[in-house]
């Protein structure tokens, strides 16, 4: 085990559609706010890690030069939807190994540049050439899950209802209005059985967190902080034949390793921000993260165990379904939510006495893989 690592600051812009902002325009404000909130100077920063997927060459350097933050190593990270969390993982590694003391992590994405529609995927991929899109991947997961279990389309809708209910409490969420099961089921079909509100919205976003060693944290002692209890990154493993799409092994394996690193189990968690890019994902991930036995995720959902007042609040921010999913920013925004929840700064959506938080984000539609990447973090109130 390496040195203890802490998140000492977080900032983000409300996710939304900012057609007149560039990657730089999206990220500079939360970058300044995160540095100020941490009570550090630019000169305290030892390295910068930047998660994005569609920002182009030197996205991090373009952002940092605007505030004269240079010289130090700046690393641009692309791991699709897991880009931001992968950037945090890289920062955690460097600090826990004692190589550096303070790292700034930026997650940023501008999806309005594509004018709407589904995410552009790699044209080199075999299944992308055949016409696969991310909603279809999750829709096939949903079809199989509904076939194999007692779950119904109403359960898929209920996930979206919960997300919108949470999002209504979150000033950073793109959708801030509640919605009913009927409205979800009657909405425009995207890929059967998924309707529009069962799919996360595209949009723009930027989030910044600052990580510090124990030594550095003591130097900036007055600020709130949370401890990184686990940081795990896995890549997908190819299957040329059968794969059970309802049991995503990349998340099962990452969760197992994260719990082992943190020394806790699923019952200890007070909150989870998980990768609910489509409503079926939330149900499947309840099982993969150990909250429910395979096939029984709907029991938790229907019984209200995963909303405020339940055993563990899943996606208190509204998740990707309500908050939005600017891919490179999402993993960092999840960690910002964990930071605010564990330091009692979450306002109307504050979870009482929250001590343990998990963030989970997968990335990438690639033929033969469950997902390209999966990053899981566990945090403890410090």
């Amino acid at each position, binding site marked *: 085990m390496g040195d203890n690592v802490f998140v000492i600051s977080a900032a983000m812009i409300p996710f939304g559609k900012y057609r007149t902002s560039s990657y730089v325009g999206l990220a500079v404000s939360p970058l300044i706010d995160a540095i100020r909130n941490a009570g550090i100077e630019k000169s305290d920063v030892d390295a910068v890690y930047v998660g994005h997927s569609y920002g182009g060459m030197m996205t991090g350097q373009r952002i940092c030069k605007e505030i004269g933050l240079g010289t130090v190593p700046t690393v641009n990270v692309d791991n699709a939807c897991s880009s931001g969390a992968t950037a945090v993982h890289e920062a955690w590694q460097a600090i826990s190994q004692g190589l550096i003391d303070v790292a700034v992590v930026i997650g940023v994405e501008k999806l309005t540049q594509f004018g709407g529609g589904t995410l552009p995927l790699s044209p080199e991929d*075999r299944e992308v050439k055949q*016409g696969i899109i991310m909603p279809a991947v999750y829709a096939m997961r949903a079809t199989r899950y509904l*076939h*194999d279990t007692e779950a119904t389309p109403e359960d898929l809708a209920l996930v979206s209802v919960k997300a919108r209910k949470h999002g209504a409490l979150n000033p950073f969420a793109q959708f801030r209005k509640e919605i009913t099961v009927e409205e979800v089921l009657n909405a425009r079909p995207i890929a059967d059985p998924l309707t529009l509100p069962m799919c996360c919205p595209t949009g723009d976003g930027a989030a910044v967190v600052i990580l510090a060693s124990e030594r550095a944290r003591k130097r900036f002692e007055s600020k709130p902080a949370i401890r990184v209890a686990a940081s795990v990154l896995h890549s997908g493993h190819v299957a*040329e*034949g059968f794969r059970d799409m309802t049991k995503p092994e990349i998340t099962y394996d990452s969760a197992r390793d994260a719990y082992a690193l943190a020394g806790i189990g699923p019952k200890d968690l007070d909150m989870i921000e998980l990768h609910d890019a489509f409503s079926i994902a939330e149900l499947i991930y309840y099982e993969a993260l150990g909250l429910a036995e395979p096939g029984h995720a709907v029991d938790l959902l229907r019984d209200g165990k995963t909303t405020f007042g339940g055993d563990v609040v899943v996606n208190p921010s509204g998740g990707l379904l309500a908050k939005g999913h600017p891919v490179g920013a999402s993993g960092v925004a999840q960690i910002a939510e964990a930071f605010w929840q564990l330091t009692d700064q979450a306002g109307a959506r504050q979870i009482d006495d929250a001590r343990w938080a998990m963030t989970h984000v997968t990335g990438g539609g690639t033929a033969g893989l469950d997902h390209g990447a999966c990053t899981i973090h566990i945090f403890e109130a410090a």
Partner: protein
Amino acid sequence: MTATIEAPASQPIADMETDSLIGNFPEGQRLVGSQCNACGCTMIGSRVVCSSCISRDVSRVALPSTGVLYSFTRIHVGAEGIRPLGYVDLDNGVRTLADIHEGDIPLRPDMRVELDVKDDWFFAPAASDKREV
């Protein structure tokens, strides 16, 4: 002068030359697969490296034209109207993404499907329950 060993040059793979998944074989038009002659692993598409044992001794093979529909969806977005798409587990275990044509029988997971080729290739509910390996 001492004897020197020259490092062999690695060569790029011309994988953009053959990206069609359908091909002509003695048994007719079939999906193109690749079989590793070292470990026996069978894969979808024209491949030159085995993803299991990394052998380069890989042969082009015809894949079975029948299999089981693992899951499916109907895509409603995009320029092509409603497009049914699914994963088919072929009778030799290889999985492929495929357009699915719906007949009179409603699609459901685990139903048997078979390859058909008209202007393009697709799978449709199988007329019989026969397996082809």
